[in-house]
């Protein structure tokens, strides 16, 4: 599903250049559950953004579902992204002005689904995530754990092949964190590929493999199940 070949990412602020990623090559197969770990500033989020087609590498190649990403237009990338990738963030990134129901519905709107099928699909997801009784509340009326549930629901509503999660439990206490990890685990068991950035060893233990990043480079890769 994902193949990167020597990607490089440089941030430039004035005359100062910061190399965020150097020569990163990795492969993620369909159905995989990969955790990316490493200290702050090592480039984890940058990698995730590139994988999620919301940022671009300066060098190297990235193939997503067989498409050579560097050759795609912004519009094509947006299309590829909305049809295949769901995002979960540490700070949830729900839209405050939308209700739970509307937040979850949003990806389907951008995908151009008909109203009736949208309603039906959102209802299914809401039931599955056990948040039916909160569907008309606004994000700020929810606890952190509940917000992240909604965010996960939004990420999966369009049935994406890939979920990219950026420290999904980072703002949650351990109990709520575990709930969210169980959700992701279940999704993976149903066949969704997951790439997750995390600081937490415990969260990483849910994954099949762990990629360790340091100063923008992959320093080792462990097959979790063998640990």
């Amino acid at each position, binding site marked *: 599903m994902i193949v990167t070949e020597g990607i490089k990412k440089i941030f430039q602020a004035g005359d100062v250049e910061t190399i965020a990623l150097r020569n990163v090559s990795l492969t993620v197969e369909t159905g995989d559950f990969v955790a990316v770990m490493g200290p702050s500033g090592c480039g984890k*989020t*940058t990698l995730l*953004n590139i994988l*999620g087609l*919301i*940022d671009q590498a300066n060098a190297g190649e990235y193939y997503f579902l067989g498409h050579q990403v560097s050759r795609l237009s912004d*519009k094509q990338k*947006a*299309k590829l*992204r*909305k*049809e295949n990738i769901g*995002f979960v*963030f540490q*700070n949830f*990134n*729900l*839209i*405050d*002005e*939308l209700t739970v129901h*509307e937040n979850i519905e*949003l*990806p389907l*709107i*951008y*995908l151009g689904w008909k109203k009736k099928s949208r309603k039906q699909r959102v209802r299914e997801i809401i039931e599955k995530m056990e948040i039916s009784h909160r569907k008309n509340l606004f994000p700020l009326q929810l606890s952190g754990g509940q917000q992240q549930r909604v965010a996960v629901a*939004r990420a999966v509503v369009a049935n994406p092949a890939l979920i990219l999660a950026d420290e999904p439990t980072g703002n949650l206490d351990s109990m709520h964190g575990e709930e969210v990890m169980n959700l992701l685990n279940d999704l993976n068991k149903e066949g969704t590929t997951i790439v997750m950035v995390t600081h937490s060893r415990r969260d990483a233990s849910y994954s099949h493999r762990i990629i360790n990043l340091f100063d923008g480079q992959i320093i080792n890769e462990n097959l979790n199940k063998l640990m």
Partner: protein
Amino acid sequence: MITNYFKIGFRILIRQRSYTVLNILGLSIGIAVFVFIYLYVQSEIRYDRYWSDSKNIYRVWNEYSLEGKVEKVAISPFRLAGTLKKNFPEVVEATKLFFTDPSDVNDMSSLTYNGKVYEVPNITLSDSGLFRIFNYNFFEGDPRTALSKPNSMVISAKVARQLFGNEKAVGKKLKTVRREYTVTGVFDKNTCPTHLDFDAVVSEYSLSPKSLQKMNSDWFWLGVYTYVKLADTVSPESFEKRANDFISKQISAFIDSANINIDGYMVYSLEPVRSIHFNTSLAYDSPSNTNSGYLIIFSIIAGFILLTASINYINLAMARSLKRAKEVGMRKVLGAFRKQLAMQYISEAFIVVFIAFILALSLVELLMPWFNALVGKNLTLVGNLFSRQGIVFGLLLIFMMIILAVVSGIFPAFILSRYNPANVLKGNNFFININGKRGISAGGIRKVLVVIQYVVSIGMIIATMIIFSQMKFLKNYDPGFDEKNIIVINTPDDTAYYQQADEFKIELKAIPGVIGVSTANNAPGYTYGKSLFHAGDTSDKALQTLSLYIVDTGFFNVLKIPLVEGKFFDSKMETDTGHYYIINQAAAKDLDLDEPVGSRLEVSFFEKTNGRIVGVVKDFNFYSLHTGIEPLVFLLYPKESRYILVRLDEKHKNVAIAEINKVWDKYNKGHFMHYTFLKDKIQSLYGADLKMLSVFIYFTLFVMFISSLGLYGLSSFLIEQRTKEIAIRKVLGGSDRRIILLLIKDYFRLVIIAGLLASPVVYYLMNKWLNTFSAHISINGWYFVAGILLMMALAFLSVVIRSFHVLRQNPALALKYE
């Protein structure tokens, strides 16, 4: 999708209440001003467009030259209309209308009905062609025949109500001192906006056969407006040429028969009736005529006010974009295209604009009486929406709403949708202000827009100050005579009055509080007509056209006009058979007289009046300062008077006027005493300027208010953004004063840039305006400095009010979240 945009738009606007209120307030004021100006301009351009076939109706104006001096006048000879109608089949209809000055009261202003005297503002004389060309709505009578019989009178509905209440007017008898008229029609004066202004018209056949015959034989007596309606197929240019050929032959014949020797010409031209309102180049024209330049200025200002208001929206929306960066980023990640994001912003703008429109229209309706009083009109909003042009107006409003929403929405949409979601979602917002090398940054656009607002505000502040100073200058300007405490009474056109005029004058002089009395046919501010003069001893000496005042001995004393040379008129000259002249300095120069006192002068007035110049008076301004000092000749002839000028004692003015009224009633039964303070009359010559001043003052206040509102909103967002910076500075020991200075510094720089941009434009335009006055203030640098300083003070206030709030906060609070 659309409903989604609006739903979210509403929620966002409600969540950010103060922002929304600020925006709606600014926009609705901007729109209200725009609508007011639209209605005003609309009513102005509709002048004389209502008349059926108005494109075929023309007024004949007249350019004549004598001795190289050219005069362009709106008036023409009495016989012109008849001549054209009789000799040119392409003239479908022609009419004449006596020239009257609506701000003056003419000789027939008093009407007696049932023994009671009424004052009717403006009675004129015309023929049956009048209502055939100008299809006024008639409440009573037949417009086609109403003026065909002698002694018939058509009155306006207002006069009919004033005189007869609800009774039928047609058939009622009205009396002037000379004769009795029968009302034959009642017309609606408000049929359409028009340059014509009369409250009653009498038929031309009401004149005595003798005067009718005299006027019908003279080509040089200019006293009526002539209108023609041409057949559809006729080209006005070719008609003009043929008519001039024909008339010049008639005039030559007339000159030969009258044995006059004139070096000059007289050319008639057609002027479309629709453009009369915007022609201010002719003398003796309707005082309601206006310079279309004012309309253009007003329209531009309206556009600026609207621009200022929408800049507020754009700036606030962009400043606020920081708060929304996360939302935008998320939408992009979820697959929104830029177009979809833009639609979201435009929808929000549309909601704001829509609410602002509703509010603005309510404001307009509410403030309409005030606006009407300001511009001296009778406009209605509802009336306009449901009139024939209502659809255009409605469509314009909708069109404007869309344009405003799109313009206001598209900027923020453009800026926001450009953000890279990867950066936004991480929460580091610094890039928004820097925005890399990709074109103009949001901050840059914001600065440009703020500068535009400042340019408009500063420009208007400076212009208003200059106009104000000039008007003050005019008010205090010494015209060369003492205009204070003089009332001007219109003399009744009644032989009975002239028989007792001397006694009347003596009795007036005896009233305590009356300092002096004079009679004259002209007075400063009332000056009409020019006469032909021969100067010098030989009859072949040049002919000149000069203004003529026919006065009595008291004139110079009452107006306090100083003598330069020779002597004033005295009572001996009054009784002797010779003719005596006094001229002003300008006339001495114009007539080329080295030693004016003792020179001979001859004027064609009634008959040739040959006399001697006895004195020269100092020049004075006898009209508004829009015209310079002109040559002026005074002829002593106490029997001819249109006006009685009375100088009053300042302290006993009111008592004296009451006494004068009593004396008036004794001598002038059947006449209403109409008087004006000379000072007011002269001030009224600046009516258009004063109107412009008041409109400018209000517009400037609006612009200042709207841009301050915007600045207040903008600075609150920007300060919020800099909360952390302020907190760090405070922790590091920065004083409040220094921090405020830091916050305000940028705005001051923008104000100065705007001031530098606005100044040359204002200087150029204001100089142009000032040059329409013969005496005016000079524009100095202080106006510009003061304008810029005022704007700085406003900017300071708008920013400081917000800063205090942030400065008072505990810095720990601001830093905790980082």
